[in-house]
């Protein structure tokens, strides 16, 4: 008999690995991403490719530079890149997309020590950086289903790195922007079925919801977070709408902007969301409240990104006060 190997208990492990979860999140994001490519064309495709590519390159670089655990094969860098790309406007210059990925991975993930250590959702850190650095380029929207979307790129896409992007001939506005600045509402069905302008991956709320629901059923994201976010948004906006018809109703709020992507894929990011029951609900409700507050009373049309980032910051605090109740009570 060969020498026997020793290992601590338990000697059985569940089949599910980190990489398995991460890749499933990627697959679940694909339908919405593909819809984005379908509706916005070549530019959207290239933004997604550049984001994922740059995120992987950056992750590889930082991982080897700092001798960190984790690797490209765990899929976390792909998720970051994909999520970032899906939350960018289709006409964003590709160099900005690459820079966003670099910031997301570098500042959002590896500054904290790599996979599992970061406090803020890396993709949102990258996006917040871009939004604050290049507000003009980040709020230039393209209408969906342009006839030549698969023949030519949008004007902004191939801007020389660090140069000011050219303007596109045709520009659109997001449903939230229309509501905020022009007081125009949009059809609920258009919102859910991806018929509006917006970020690449956020327009088709139904597809996002499908992917998220699949993950929730397979327990690869915590269903309580999206339910808490959507529930609180629905209730708050419902009440506000009843009191003052200028405020949008619950369905509009749920279908518009990045709410679905945020609620199902950003807020539920395992690393940056709480693990204790009480904190999970508080976290979700806080995000919902902040989204409503920023959309209703802030100067910006959209607030999902800020809401989630701020809620990320509260996670350690929330968890401190919501440790699970002891079995059998305290001695």
């Amino acid at each position, binding site marked *: *008999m060969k020498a*026997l*190997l020793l290992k601590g208990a338990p000697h*059985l492990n569940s089949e599910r690995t980190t990489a398995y979860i991460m890749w499933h999140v990627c697959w679940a994001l694909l339908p919405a991403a593909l819809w984005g490519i379908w509706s916005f064309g070549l530019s959207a495709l290239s933004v997604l490719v550049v984001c994922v590519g740059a995120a992987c390159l950056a992750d590889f670089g930082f991982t080897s530079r700092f001798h960190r655990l984790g690797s490209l094969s765990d899929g976390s860098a792909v998720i970051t890149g994909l999520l970032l790309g899906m939350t960018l406007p289709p006409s964003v210059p590709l160099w900005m997309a690459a820079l966003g990925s670099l910031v997301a991975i570098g500042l959002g993930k590896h500054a904290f020590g*790599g*996979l*599992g250590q970061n406090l803020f959702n890396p993709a949102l850190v990258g996006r917040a950086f871009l939004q604050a650095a290049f507000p003009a380029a980040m709020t230039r929207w393209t209408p969906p289903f342009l006839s030549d979307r698969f023949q030519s790129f949008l004007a902004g896409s191939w801007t020389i790195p660090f140069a000011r992007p050219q303007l596109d001939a045709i520009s659109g506005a997001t449903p939230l922007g229309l509501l905020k600045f022009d007081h125009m509402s949009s059809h609920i069905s258009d919102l859910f079925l991806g018929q509006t302008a917006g970020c690449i991956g956020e327009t088709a709320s139904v597809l996002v919801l499908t992917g998220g629901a699949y993950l929730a059923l397979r327990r690869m994201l915590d269903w309580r977070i999206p339910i808490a976010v959507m529930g609180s948004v629905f209730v708050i906006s419902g009440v506000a709408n009843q009191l003052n018809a200028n405020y949008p109703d619950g369905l509009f709020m749920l279908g518009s902007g990045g709410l679905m992507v945020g609620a199902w894929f950003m807020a539920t990011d395992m690393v940056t969301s709480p*693990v204790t029951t009480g904190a999970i609900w508080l976290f979700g409700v806080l995000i919902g409240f902040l989204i409503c507050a920023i959309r209703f009373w802030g100067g910006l049309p959209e607030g999902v990104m800020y809401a989630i980032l701020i809620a990320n910051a509260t996670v350690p605090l929330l968890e401190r006060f919501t440790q*699970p109740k002891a079995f059998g009570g305290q001695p």
Partner: protein
Amino acid sequence: MFPTFARGVHPPQLKTTAEMPVRRLGFAPELHIPLGQHIGAPAQCVVKVGQRLERGSLIAEGRSFVSASIHAPVTGTVRKIGWLATPQGQRIQGIVLASEPGAGQEHVPFRAPPDLNDPGQWVDAVARSGLVGLGGAAFPTHVKLKVPDGRNVDTVMINGAECEPYLTADHRAMLEWPDDIVSGSLLMKKVLGAERVVIGVEANKMDAVKALERASNNCVDIRVVQVKYPQGAEKMLIRALLRREVPAGGLPMDVGVVVANVQTAAMIARLVPKGLGLVERIVTVAGDAVEKPGNYLVPIGTPVGFLLQSAGVVPDCQRVILGGPMMGVSVADLQLPITKGTSGVLAFKTAQDHESGPCIRCGYCVQACPMSLNPAAIMRSARGGDLDGCVQYRLRDCFECGSCAFVCPSKIPLVQYFRQAKLDLRKQPVAV
């Protein structure tokens, strides 16, 4: 839906030996009998080197309250009294017994049968029989049978959950000794003055439930619980069946319950009234490196290597585990003996070993922990050397069931972190 506790995990059951009746093997040429096989003080040796012993005669006596006596598992001669190895890597006093060629299975009483109507004498007889919890914890049984003044025990709970994968020893005991289990539990009920006996069996052993029901004559309450790990942990079984929670750091007696394993209950009925000592137990031998897996009635002290050879072990076996796969210890030394607490011996060809990655805070462990702890937070504190943090997150409530490490997608050896932190805590001077 059958009752259960909150959280927990569902490892694969892998109960391949459930259909295999209990068999005996031959005696090993040499048996290694540690004097401390139970929780509490080691027993005191009462034999000398060279002395001839009959199977069943007393070889070591438990003299303090929390201790248990030990009896010769085979007819033979004492070859050595000295240090033996333990799976934990420590050394402990023990007796090496050379078995007599052609020794028989007959089992001699070491004392006169006790008077079953005298509770004091009866409990004493349990202690002298060397009975300990056969589920794995090996807590001396008689200690549980002495209710301190002012305490009231209303329920005797017999634990037939056997939630560990692979293990079927308790299952076979329920199928083959149902009458003993019932009468043993009724004896316990009588001495404790309890109101009822509840036997909890996991739903994957319905044949055992039927067997027990046939034997019970409606004197005991047989209940089915959900198949879930760690349903066999006594706190979890009490929660499932009685909806009572044993307080942190407390014992089942604190909520009026005494829990015993099915094999323990059976052994009470088989041994104590006849004045016999505990010399053997059912051990499940299984795993993909075993050619003849099964359930064996193994004399205490039989070396693991002998047991595996008798059951046919393949040459490329890479890992041997004493106990179940969730809480058992892997061993490298096959001279280690089967003790009263060994419920299984598992041998595997592959040493399935995952590289552990960083914690991604998925929270699976929080949703798995039956004690409703936050294993990820304890692990962070333990790894960062923050022992105060460990205590705040109630590390001491952890009973190392391994549910957290089982579900961890990053394959972090959480239980090892907890063990180490508990050791460090013990080394720390007690705060005044």
